[in-house]
């Protein structure tokens, strides 16, 4: 049977936030450590994405900026718990979140990709005109949309 030969795993994605003042070598160190964890648990890392230092929507660890890292990997469900346990042990990691991206991925067919580093995009405030339904969303109150039944 075809299924017997294929090794089906799940693909997960974990976003983790590092403190903004983390030096680059520490970032690499954490990356390698997590890669080791994934390999030890019988998974494999597809890629790490360094999304750069960005402004957070609210202060994280008393800091308004953070280094966003994203890790894409395949493996068995127990891997996520181990991965997160390791993140929790690292003091530089301030926040993390794991999401299942895909199910029943063929382990051998999934190619490993090179690590990516994205330059941080400074979020400039876009003019309001770009929003088609923006004219009503400020001061939004539920009553606004009720129709009088008179």
């Amino acid at each position, binding site marked *: 049977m075809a299924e017997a030969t294929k090794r089906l795993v799940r693909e997960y994605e974990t976003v983790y936030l590092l403190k903004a003042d983390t030096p680059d070598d520490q970032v690499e160190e954490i990356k390698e450590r997590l890669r080791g964890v994934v390999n030890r648990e019988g998974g494999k890392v597809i890629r790490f994405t360094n999304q750069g230092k960005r402004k957070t*929507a*609210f202060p994280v660890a008393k800091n308004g900026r953070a280094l966003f890292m994203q890790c894409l990997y395949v493996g068995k469900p127990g891997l996520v718990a181990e991965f997160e346990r390791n993140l929790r042990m690292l003091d530089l990691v301030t*926040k*993390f979140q794991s999401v299942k991206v895909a199910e029943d991925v063929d382990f051998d067919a999934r190619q490993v990709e090179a690590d990516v580093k994205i330059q941080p995009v400074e979020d400039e405030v*876009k003019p309001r005109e770009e929003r088609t339904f923006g004219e009503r969303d*400020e001061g939004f109150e539920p009553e606004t949309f009720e129709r009088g039944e008179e």
Partner: protein
Amino acid sequence: MARPDSGGKTFGGGGKSFGGGGGYGGGGRGGDREERGEHGDRGGEEGGRGRGFGRRKVCRFCADKALKVDYKDQQALKYFLTERGKIIPRRISGNCAKHQREIATAVKRARMVAILPYTAGTP
């Protein structure tokens, strides 16, 4: 039938009688535009049971199959948020039910990793 207030009742009674109401309005009080004006800005341009007026909004994600909901894409998700960081309801954004659910999940995920605010500013 000629009395304005009785006519108003039939108009307000439901969309079914809309055509008749329009005919009435033309004779009696100068059209349904004014009738609608009575409701003030509560109805808005496409609010209420307005069928036929306003622009029929199409779900962006259904219109463009290549577009995917991604919780990491702050700029794309901002489109579905108010200034305060609330999720814009489906009746305003025009999303279909499926994609609105995906948007809601994506916004909530983005909030957890501090990409989007739980609440922003005080007006």
